[in-house]
């Protein structure tokens, strides 16, 4: 009996020791595990959520000591929330940003400069120059998503236009839209975002530039310049002739484009993915149905575009900067992340000078080639910064007044300028 008891005691002792050891090991592992907070809208949108979740899972599998806590925040809310979080001392480690929002956050002085991190990369990145503020790199380009003039070949053909010859000048565009309007009254000739928000200003900026207008920023000629008035008058003509549908956000044109209700559409490279996910078109069908060209040239004879791509930023208060950089680097440059998210779910171009060989086939499409060869070279920098949002409110209010009202263009331009002067 005694030996049985002592045997049980020894077994119990072993079991207890093993449990204690396991607990210690688990605790040690848990202590070593780094948790990164990643604020993004990719996981807030149904179209991109599966892609970003897979990429995060793949990263965590490859880096078992790093855990990503994804914080889903909508695109329109992310800048507001991050500015408030930065001011209250509670920023995430890494965030997805785009357009003026990147420069807004940089203005708080709470973004980690990335020059030293990027210098360590063994790949060459594109688009770095446009992300510098006071000569410091404030963000890492995640993808490139410039805008081009998409044209629906079926609608063009029905309007008696050559579907392989999209308009190259503003005059040709006006003629093409007139033909579309006459042959297919239910089709919106041009999908153009005229809402009053900073993104809309970014989207309309290239159109202003094609008329030679530059209402704000370095070298600005103001809102009362003849070029700006010519642009406002052109916008009024578009509305009066029924060529645009004012008040719709860019995203609200996309489902209509997928239903062949938009002839020409000023939108980013990601439109292909949205249309295909909406109407189930195959790649071949899409390339037969849709094409993309550079913006038609205006009086200045130049095309312009805007970069609507996404960036990754690291917050200066992050205590896990090396892990954060590892994650950012993976998202932007790893072939897996590019294949599983950037190209497939986001339908955008990776920020690499030379694409990885494994992806060369996926990136060799008529649309990507058109963007790379003809549109990206036309991307013009925008006057991003803390004053951009207020300037956008003033300028886009003027655009809306021109598009929807009857007030003389001179008065509208003067009203916009007076508001810009107040800022």
């Amino acid at each position: 009996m005694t030996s049985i008891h002592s045997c049980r005691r020894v077994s119990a002792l072993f079991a207890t020791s093993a449990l204690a050891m396991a607990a210690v090991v688990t605790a040690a592992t848990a202590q070593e595990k780094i948790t990164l907070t990643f604020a993004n809208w990719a996981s807030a949108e149904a179209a991109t959520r599966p892609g970003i979740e897979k990429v995060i899972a793949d990263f965590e599998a490859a880096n078992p000591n790093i855990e990503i806590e994804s914080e889903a925040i909508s695109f329109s809310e992310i800048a507001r929330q991050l500015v408030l979080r930065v001011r209250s001392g509670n920023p995430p480690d890494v965030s997805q940003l785009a357009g003026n929002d990147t420069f807004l956050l940089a203005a708080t002085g709470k973004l980690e400069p990335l020059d030293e991190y990027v210098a360590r990369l063994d790949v060459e990145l594109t688009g770095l120059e446009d992300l510098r503020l006071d000569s410091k790199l404030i963000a890492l380009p995640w993808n490139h998503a410039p805008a081009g003039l998409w044209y629906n070949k079926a609608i063009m053909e029905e309007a008696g236009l050559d579907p392989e010859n999209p308009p190259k000048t503003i005059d040709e565009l006006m003629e093409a839209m007139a033909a579309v309007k006459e042959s297919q009254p239910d089709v919106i000739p041009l999908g153009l975002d005229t809402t009053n928000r900073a993104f809309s200003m970014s989207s309309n900026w290239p159109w202003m530039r094609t008329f030679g207008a530059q209402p704000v920023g370095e070298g600005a000629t103001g809102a009362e310049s003849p070029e700006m008035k010519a642009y406002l008058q052109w916008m009024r003509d578009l509305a009066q002739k029924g060529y645009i549908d004012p008040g719709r956000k860019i995203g609200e044109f996309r489902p209509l484009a997928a239903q062949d209700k938009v002839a020409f559409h000023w939108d980013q490279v990601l439109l292909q993915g949205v249309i295909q996910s909406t109407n189930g078109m195959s790649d071949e069908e899409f390339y037969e149905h849709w094409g993309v060209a550079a913006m038609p040239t205006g009086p200045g004879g130049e095309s312009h575009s805007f970069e609507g791509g996404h960036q990754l930023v690291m917050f200066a208060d992050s205590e896990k900067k090396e892990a954060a950089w590892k994650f950012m680097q993976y998202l932007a440059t790893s072939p897996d992340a590019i294949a599983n998210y950037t190209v497939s779910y986001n339908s955008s171009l990776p920020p690499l000078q030379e694409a990885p060989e494994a992806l060369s086939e996926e990136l060799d499409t008529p649309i990507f080639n058109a963007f790379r060869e003809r549109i990206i070279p036309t991307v013009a920098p925008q006057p991003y910064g803390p004053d951009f949002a207020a300037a956008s409110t003033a300028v886009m209010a003027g655009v809306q007044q021109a598009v929807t009202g009857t007030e003389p263009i001179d008065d509208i331009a003067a009203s916009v300028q007076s508001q810009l002067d107040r800022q």
Partner: protein
Amino acid sequence: MSNTAVMENQKPVRRASGRVPWLDWMVMPTLAVLALVVGYPVVYTLMLSVQDYNLLDIVPGGYVGAGNYSSLFSDPVFWTALYNTAVYTFGSVFVSALLGLIFALLLDNLAGPQFRAVRALLLVPWAVPFVVVAFLFRYMYMQNGGIVNEMLLWSGLIDHPVPWLNNAALAMPAVMVANIWAMAPFFFLLLSAALSGIPNEVIESARVDRARTWSMIWHIKLPFLRNPLIVSSLLMIIANFNDFAKIWAMTQGGPGFSTTTLVVYVYRLAFENFEFGYASATGVIWLLLLLVFAVAYVRALRMN
């Protein structure tokens, strides 16, 4: 016993002893919570309103005294927003109250299941969340495919779709229609309840005097509805003064600034431009205007 003597006898014993009644201390937690939840933001807003405070600035804002206020008074968008707020608030409340009154009078004394169903149907818009109302009307008003334009085109009343929300002259009335649709049931509900509270004796004696319908409404029912109408109107004026969701979801204050109200303007200043100092000065003016209606509301309640 004289009146004075009676009053002296009725004085509470505790107060006579000079001690504060324990019940008075019970309100202290409430006061503390109010001071924290209401008092602190108000005081902080007042402090911000005299600073040049932008949330994006690395250097904290400096004291500018009345600088924000003087800028505000020369800001044309502020005056446009103030005018739009008045039009939106008073226009919506007046028409909603009128519609609520008409429906309440029409359905008064009508019994039976069919009228109960009509009453229930009339109350449905009040149950719809404001953001849903806004998106519902936004899609109804759409130039391409909106049901309003489709019906008007079908009936031959218009030749071309009307840009209800994208025309500077039409946007405000269009937004107000959505607001009135959502708010009129509140007045209907309240006034129906007030009508049912009119004593039967009064109605009967009016009938005995052979009062006609119009005379009955004008001389009997409307005087009884006066106070509920004042109180509910003031309440709705305060609510509409603060109405952000409907306008933002439908027009974002546009086109131009044609539907920008004070609350929309404050939002743009604070959360798009991060001009917290200037936005606070606008907020203080907005608060003062609201206080006027709040005081009127409290007085109306006391009068009742």
